[in-house]
């Protein structure tokens, strides 16, 4: 009986994460001064948006199976951020046009990854590792302003109209939460749980051979997923450049680890084909809260990554433990 209760608690990912969330929330409220007030809590949500978008990108890619992983999300984010920055700040395009071009850049980078994975049949790990190099390097090259010598420079002379998505609020709720994150979340949830495409994605992820025999175009599903990953990274880039009012060519460094961690903690099985958007949402909330708590407690940023490393290994260990237990 006791064992059954534990099984349901750990086995039901959404329940487990909710419990973890509540425990962490209470813990941080009592131990970290400045954590539990309305301003901090609403303010915190804006930091979760960029991470959340990248985590959803990672979730889609990992769901598609076949060793699916995208190590290049951070670099794609850097690339799009600097493209948007340079177009507005140096070329003088209107922000809306620059953002559209930025989104297309992200989509193109994602498509490039997807083509190599699905048509080229190269392992996702290798493709996106190379992609990480390439997009990061492109971002640095684009960031060079010949007027100021050969070094990459950040861009920060934006017009005020560019800041609306990252800095404005309605009733205390940041714009990017309301107009970007929530819609994306709902769309992806709908796509995955209610459409034929979603079922195809799960099918491809859990059993590629079976999916092929039941007439699913595996390559096309995978191509779409990597392209979406590029697009979501581009959205994250738009939001973050607007929020911090600066486009830096190294802005996405280290984000890939966080995105992968959140996706895996949220119950996306690294083998593919298993996991939900809801789990990822809870996981985003937990990690954002943890980062915020550590920051308020004055712990160096590098420990946020260190803690994430632990959480990543721990959550996969737990996943595998559960799978093994189910088999017995």
């Amino acid at each position: 009986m006791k064992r059954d209760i534990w099984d349901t608690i750990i086995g039901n990912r959404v329940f487990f994460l909710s419990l973890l969330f509540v425990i962490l929330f209470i813990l941080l409220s009592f131990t970290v001064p400045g954590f539990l007030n309305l301003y901090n809590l609403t303010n915190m949500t804006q930091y979760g948006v960029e991470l959340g978008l990248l985590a959803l990108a990672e979730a889609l890619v990992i769901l598609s199976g076949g060793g699916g992983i995208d190590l290049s999300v951070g670099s794609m984010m850097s690339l799009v951020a600097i493209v948007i920055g340079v177009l507005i700040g140096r070329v003088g395009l209107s922000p809306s046009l620059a953002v559209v071009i930025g989104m297309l850049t992200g989509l193109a980078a994602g498509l490039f990854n997807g083509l190599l994975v699905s048509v080229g049949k190269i392992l996702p790990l290798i493709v996106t590792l190379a992609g990480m190099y390439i997009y990061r390097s492109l971002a640095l090259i684009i960031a060079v302003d010949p007027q100021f010598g050969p070094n990459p420079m950040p861009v920060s002379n934006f017009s005020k109209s560019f800041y609306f998505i990252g800095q404005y609020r309605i009733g205390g709720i940041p714009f990017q939460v309301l107009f970007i994150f929530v819609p994306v979340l709902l769309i992806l949830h709908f796509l995955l749980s209610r459409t034929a495409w979603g079922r195809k994605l799960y099918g491809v992820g859990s059993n590629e051979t079976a999916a092929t025999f039941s007439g699913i175009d595996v390559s096309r599903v995978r191509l779409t997923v990597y392209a979406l990953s590029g697009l979501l990274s581009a959205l994250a880039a738009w939001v973050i450049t607007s929020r911090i009012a600066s486009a830096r060519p190294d802005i996405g460094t280290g984000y890939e680890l966080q995105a992968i961690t959140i996706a895996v903690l949220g119950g996306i099985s690294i083998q593919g084909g298993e996991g939900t958007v809801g789990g990822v949402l809870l996981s985003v909330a937990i990690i954002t809260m943890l980062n915020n708590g550590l920051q308020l407690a004055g712990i160096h940023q590098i420990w946020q990554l260190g803690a994430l490393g632990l959480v990543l290994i721990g959550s996969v260990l737990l996943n595998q433990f559960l799978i093994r237990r189910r088999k017995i």
Partner: protein
Amino acid sequence: MINFQRIVRRREFTVLVLILILSAIFSFTTERFLSVSNITNLLLQLSGVAITAIGMTMVIITGGIDVSAGSTLGMACVVSGYLLMGGYSPFLALVLAVLVGLGIGFVNGAIIVWGDVPPIIATLGMMNLIRALMFQTLGGRWISGIPPACRTIGLGKWLGVPIPMWIATFLIIVFSYFLSYRPLGRHIYAVGNNPEAARVSGVNLKSTIIFVYALTGALAGFAGLINAARTGIVQTNSGMGFELDVIAAVVLGGTSALGGRGTIIGSLLGAFLVGIIKNGMVLLNVPALSEGLVIGALIIISVLADIIRARRETR
């Protein structure tokens, strides 16, 4: 009779030709490429990559990956930096640097094998954890001014060739022999080719896999000591991104990321290729920013070429 066709078809040959072509181009277009100081510099820089690539080749042959090698190198830098500064013998620093690396590598292998965690996840987590521990140990400061007497292993020369390159050469010969002729070496290929078949024929999967990660850690630790002795400086970001150079060298050298195929000599050539590209671009005043672009593109092209060739051969 030597089968020329077989040699020409090997990846190692293609990489060698590329290295020769690039060297020729760089020596005609720049004056410094063939100078003694530049070649010494080049060899010094790539010896760490070449040493760690020995282990990484085996890891990738088993179908795994180790992205924590850069952090492991960094941690070994910290440990050996403190010991050298504290006036301990360089030999003790060497032993401890290798042990620290070995320990980290063993934990990687243990998590992968006993926890059934995919290698990319285990080593990605470890990479950041070790980096945070490094920061904690250094306390935000950096180590500099390691006494010159202790820096022979990183800066010394013998017969005109830097000592790190001698060490790398020695290790490459030993481990190439090991990988080709010793039972455990053959097991590594077997695990990469077909784990199930390997298991059935009596290969101990778990200890083989733990061995390759532990070895990679130990070699990265060794490279860390050399790095600390060579540069004389240890910072929180020492070794950051180093793993990418190593993985690039191994993949360019023809080790298949699907597992089961690859040689240490190939990885050495890959390391030379990456090193020469970086070096030549600096000499040509091409901004270092495009380095990633060139290396990334090379990785993709070389893997694609392999796949196309494989398809043609099966037809």
